[in-house]
């Protein structure tokens, strides 16, 4: 076991963590603004991968997929929020959760009907194949791209939330939607847009994960559980928490698959249990948000 191997595995962990970061960012944005736990997040992720792979098959251009798939999923998200989730505001926090849970069944089954049960074969897209020497060994080019792309998206989200008027409203709305409404902001429009952005991020995570994971109708189920773990570790509704916890979970998975491969999948859940014992609100969770 050399230091080079450890560093390479660390990079693999960060690449894997990038997917978690994108998933958790979407989940956290939606939760912060709408207090909706989106149980269909894994399903949106899965549909994003399918749409992306399908478009890649049509056009042969991965960039088309990376742009168009998240937009399609965002559009699905907008329709979902407008017609299904909106009637449920004010009826208790568990109802949107249950609704999105039911929705995930519909999405999974619809994908099975259209694309079949077996899943789609998908390799690394042309232009992003091969490996590059990163000093400690050869590392897949695609995974470097994945990290850089996620970093750019995260930065963009952070800029929008922290530096724009829209972001100001989102942050204020997450804290006290009633006051924001009283101040004359159309909060239902903000909720709609935030849900669209959140699901769009899930779709983006889906198409970006497609080359490194199997594209199957069930791929969203472990992704949903892992995204939950990341948001619980990071602290619900916290964007910084989503980023830190996403990378942390990715690294823990990569390291355990190096040392104890049998426990690789279970390790994140043990990590979550540990964090919960020490900090029940997660690393960056705010007091009062959940009460």
């Amino acid at each position, binding site marked *: 076991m050399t230091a080079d191997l450890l560093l390479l595995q660390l990079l693999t962990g960060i690449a894997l963590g990038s997917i978690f970061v994108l998933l958790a960012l979407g989940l956290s944005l939606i939760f912060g603004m709408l207090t909706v736990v989106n149980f269909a997040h894994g399903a949106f992720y899965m549909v994003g991968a399918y749409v992306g792979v399908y478009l890649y098959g049509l056009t042969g251009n991965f960039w088309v997929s990376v742009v168009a798939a998240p937009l399609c999923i965002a559009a699905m998200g907008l329709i979902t929020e407008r017609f299904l989730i909106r009637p449920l505001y004010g*009826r208790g926090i568990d109802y949107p959760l249950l609704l999105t849970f039911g929705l995930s*069944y519909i999405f999974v089954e619809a994908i099975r009907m259209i694309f079949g049960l077996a899943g789609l074969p998908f390799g690394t897209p042309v232009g992003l194949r091969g490996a590059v020497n990163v000093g400690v060994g050869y590392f897949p080019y695609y995974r470097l791209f994945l990290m850089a792309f996620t970093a750019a998206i995260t930065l963009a989200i952070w800029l929008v939330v922290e530096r724009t008027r829209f972001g100001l409203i989102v942050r204020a709305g997450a804290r006290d939607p009633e006051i924001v409404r009283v101040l004359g902001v159309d909060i239902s429009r903000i909720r709609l847009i935030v849900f669209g952005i959140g699901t769009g991020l899930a779709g983006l995570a889906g198409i970006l994960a497609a080359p490194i994971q199997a594209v199957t109708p069930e791929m969203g189920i472990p992704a949903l*559980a892992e995204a939950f773990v990341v948001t619980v570790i990071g602290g619900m509704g916290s964007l910084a928490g989503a980023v830190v916890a996403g990378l942390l979970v990715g690294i823990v998975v990569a390291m355990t698959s190096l040392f104890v491969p049998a426990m690789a999948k279970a390790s994140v859940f043990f990590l979550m249990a540990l964090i919960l014992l020490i900090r*029940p609100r997660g690393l960056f969770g705010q007091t009062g948000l*959940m009460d």
Partner: protein
Amino acid sequence: MMAFGQTRKTLDASSTPGVWTPVNAFLKNNKALAAIVFLSIFPFLMPYEALAVKILVFGLYALGFNLLFGYTGMLSFGHAAFLGAGAYGAGMVIVHLRAPFLLAIAGGVSLAALVAVVMGLLSIRTRGIYFSMVTLALSQCIYYLIYNAESWTGGENGLRGINISTVGLLGIQINFLDPILRYYVIFVFVALALWFLARILASPFGAVLEAIRENEKRAAACGYNVASAKLLSFVLSGAFCGLAGALWAVHLSVVPIETVYYLTSGEAVIMCLLGGMGTYFGPFVGAAIYLLFEDVLTLQTSHWQLYLGILFVLCVLFFPRGVWGSLTDWTSRR
């Protein structure tokens, strides 16, 4: 915060006596008896016995889930862990220890209760929807543990060889291979669970649970120990589901690994909501609807879950009280 539950109490039932008033009053005062009598004739209403057994077992599973969700207001997405712990517990006692039937059931329930204590201690520290996410993640943890402990649990292939041919109950040897006798053996345990649940709900502790569901802070302010009541509710709920799991294992004679999977947790949520959360008999109605729906539709289409999803979404949007809940609401307004 806890907006669940019986906001429309059956107040007008006593003020304006109608056609349904005596029926409702009887059902309300003799919940367990009515349910047990109905379930004792249930196999003759079903197309085949195996379906009746399945509804019976999953009804119990949804019932255990409902104690936590419907009565205490805690939405768990990890109840597959308890069904699985009960099934694997009972199965492992039979396969590895060659122990008799009753010991296997006891082993399954104990293991499920133990898992519930551990999961409960970790998860009730969190509130609201956080709780749903944590229970989901912890149950996935149990799934991978069972998946990897291959020498004990059979791993991916499931636990095989849980063969029970006769069951000794009260000194009588009963042929467990006969489908109708098998139903009644399982029915005995479900009936005991139903009676026990009715006692729990009628007790002061049951009232505390509903108080927590309606307003947790107020319940705490009234001097009730909310944390321990929640934990006890969690463990009791886990034990009921564990009993369902143990019975399911001896009925199927294998434990498929899917028993502990996320989707099985979802099944409890779906059954409970379809039937009516926070109602005594609703979970059984929900289980019956779900499993009959599956039984009928799988003959027509391989995509029955699409229709299930649509049914569930419509139920959330328009009938949040479920079939049984809406029915009791309707009859009490007549």
